[in-house]
């Protein structure tokens, strides 16, 4: 294996963690930080340039752009948490069952996962949203569904790897219940890679939500969402270019933070896995 120079500090983890904390904090503290109500319209003061009253200006309805970006962070964080929970929860359960039981259950479950992976993930998300109808909750479900096979495959592979380990065999020989073996012996041993996958999935979820909202299928106004703000900015692209820049900047910072944290965790938890695979 590659022996790269060991760094004294896990820089990606530090920077990534800091960014993630920053985004989480602004999302959490949005009500105190935001200078205005993000949905309060003020037609006479529409499309104002940046100024002391509105640090990032106002949009077409006179709403404060900065406040909307801060509140948009909440949407991003909620979508990320819920979607990853759905994907990781369902996916890991399927993967554990599939890997532990093997045989026919495994074959059927993996067949279904193959079916889900037969599409580019964004297309799958679009289809799920099309079937459920556009909206905030639907978007989270759609992204969660897309994440299921990712977690299922990973946890299945990991389960297969630890299934034959002595402690599992020993527990089984001692007559431990399957559910107990899975939860107390297998799951803790495969948690590391799953955690890394979850951070990467989180940034993917944020990106997917932005893309769906940009297509008009995701979070709907007046709820502020970064992708939706980019959609709204399209009509005034050359009049107020900054309206199309700040939300994108927010998306990029959030994704960067989670990606870096994922890389850092990978270095920390699993030195065998070199960074770079994505």
């Amino acid at each position, binding site marked *: 294996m590659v022996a790269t120079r060991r760094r004294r500090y896990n820089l990606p983890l530090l920077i990534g963690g800091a960014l993630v904390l920053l985004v989480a904090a602004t999302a959490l503290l949005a009500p105190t930080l935001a200078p205005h109500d993000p949905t309060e*319209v003020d037609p006479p003061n529409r499309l104002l340039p940046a100024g002391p009253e509105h640090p990032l200006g106002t949009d077409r309805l006179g709403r404060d752009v900065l406040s909307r970006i801060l509140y948009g962070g909440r949407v991003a964080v909620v979508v990320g948490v819920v979607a990853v929970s759905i994907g990781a929860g369902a996916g890991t359960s399927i993967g554990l069952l599939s890997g532990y039981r093997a045989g026919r259950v495994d074959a059927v479950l993996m067949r279904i996962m193959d079916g889900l992976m037969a599409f580019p993930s964004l297309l799958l998300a679009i289809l799920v949203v099309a079937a459920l109808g556009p909206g905030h909750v639907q978007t989270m479900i759609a992204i969660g569904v897309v994440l299921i096979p990712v977690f299922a495959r990973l946890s299945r592979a990991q389960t297969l790897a630890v299934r034959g380990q002595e402690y599992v065999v020993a527990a089984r020989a001692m007559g431990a219940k399957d559910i107990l073996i899975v939860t107390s012996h297998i799951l803790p041993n495969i948690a590391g890679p799953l955690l890394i996958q979850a951070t990467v999935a989180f940034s993917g979820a944020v990106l997917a939500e932005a893309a769906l909202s940009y297509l008009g299928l995701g979070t709907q106004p007046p709820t502020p969402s970064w992708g939706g703000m980019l959609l709204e900015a399209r009509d005034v692209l050359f009049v107020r270019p900054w309206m199309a820049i700040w939300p994108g900047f927010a998306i990029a910072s959030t994704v960067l933070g989670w990606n870096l944290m994922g890389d850092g965790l990978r270095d920390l938890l699993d030195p065998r896995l070199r960074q770079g695979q994505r």
Partner: protein
Amino acid sequence: MKSKAVCDLGAPRWAGRLAVLVLAAALAAAGAPASAQPPRDRLTFALSGGPDTLDPHGTAATLSFMVMKSLYDTLVEPDDEGKLVPALAESWTVSPDGITWTFKLRSGVRFHHGKVLDASDVKATLERILDPATRSPRRLQIGPIRAVEVVDPLTVRVVLAERFSPILAALAEGWGAILPADLVARKHDFGTKPVGTGPFTLGEWQRDSFIRLARFDGYWIGGQPRLREVFIRFVPERAVKVAGVLSGEFDIVDTIDPDDLPRVRANPDVRVITQLTSLVNVVAVNNSRGPLRDVRVRRALWHAIDRTQVLRTAYGTDSRTSAVFMDVTSPFWVDVGDPYPFDPERARRLLSEAGHGAGLTLDLALPQPYQMHIEAGQLVQAMLARVGITARPRVVEWAFWLSRVFGGGEYDLTVIGHTGKLDPEGRLVGWGDPTRNYIRYDNQKVVDLIHAGRITSNPDHRRRIYAEALKMMTEEAMMVILGSPARYVATRAGVRDFRQVYAVDTYDFRKTTK
């Protein structure tokens, strides 16, 4: 130079070559002249979207008819005042009982494939629309036609099953386009290979991208069209349209954003044409829902909403407020002044009279992707909040809106624009009958008046009848009517005689020059 460095550092040689190749291609592309100045008889028009089909009997989409206006002709057509004037039909008469309509056709009119227009084409066309196999969305709107008879090669008689005054207007709409009988008989695919009598023929069509129309030299109006080619590009992005007309890439762009007007007006090479549309935008109110059944509550909504501000902010400053359900430009419009002026205090009073002094919560459905309606809805929400009405906005996809809100009546309030029709019948049919209009407005007198309008042929009498119906609807505050929005079209300064037929919401390039 960059690729050399890469090679020295040990990258594979082919990668370096590839890099050079791509770079060269990019530079070649970049160095290419940004499309030379197009000739003067070729006009580029940016339209917000493309047609779904070029078969006039296969669609009800405005965008399709905007293109088809140049490919086909109708028996009669609206002039700038919305009056119906001769087109393929030179003249027409109607029997005293209003049942038989006789059209005298213009002689010497040719179709694109050479056939000369005669009465059999009109017969074949009307029968094609009425044939269920054609699957025309407008099959029933063409009217209660019982028979179409060829009297002589240039005379055709349309016999109705009952009196139906709007028939002439129906024949002037885009879906009344006349097709050649020989191709109709052969089940020709008009959808992608249109053949009509129109001023242009189809050159090339790439869906979602562009359509090229070429001059038809045998057009029946001598000297028209003046342009050799109309190049229609489908550009949904308003920002791109504005940038294109400013740079000269486009000669004409339809619907530019009001927010872009200062920039566009500042450019001396570009002209802005402001026109009122035939739309009527409304805050629709579901008359069958709880508190909204009470006329006092509905009137309170009018008083609570600053209609002029909503209209001007969301749809452009040149929009015209109206208090009746008819477009301001229509000859059937009546001026009733401002019966429910903006007055939040009065709104609050009416609400507490109706027993809702403590507040009221209403659902507000807004159709995606109609950004302007969504914006208008958010303004309405803020205004209602000031009189104690909590409107909960719910943005729904268009298909959902049509199905559940418009079709199913599952809403309290919604914001929408009603498209114009040549004849008031098209706009008003169904109003007053709660099972046939989406706001569940119930008034038998209105139903009777609209029916009377349908079977009356004297224009003055019709006007009076419809005026009475419109006043009655406003009197009962059936919904909050905002007015007619303005539309801004920009052209390069050299473009002349570009005609907008607002009455049927289409564009006419026959006399256009640049």
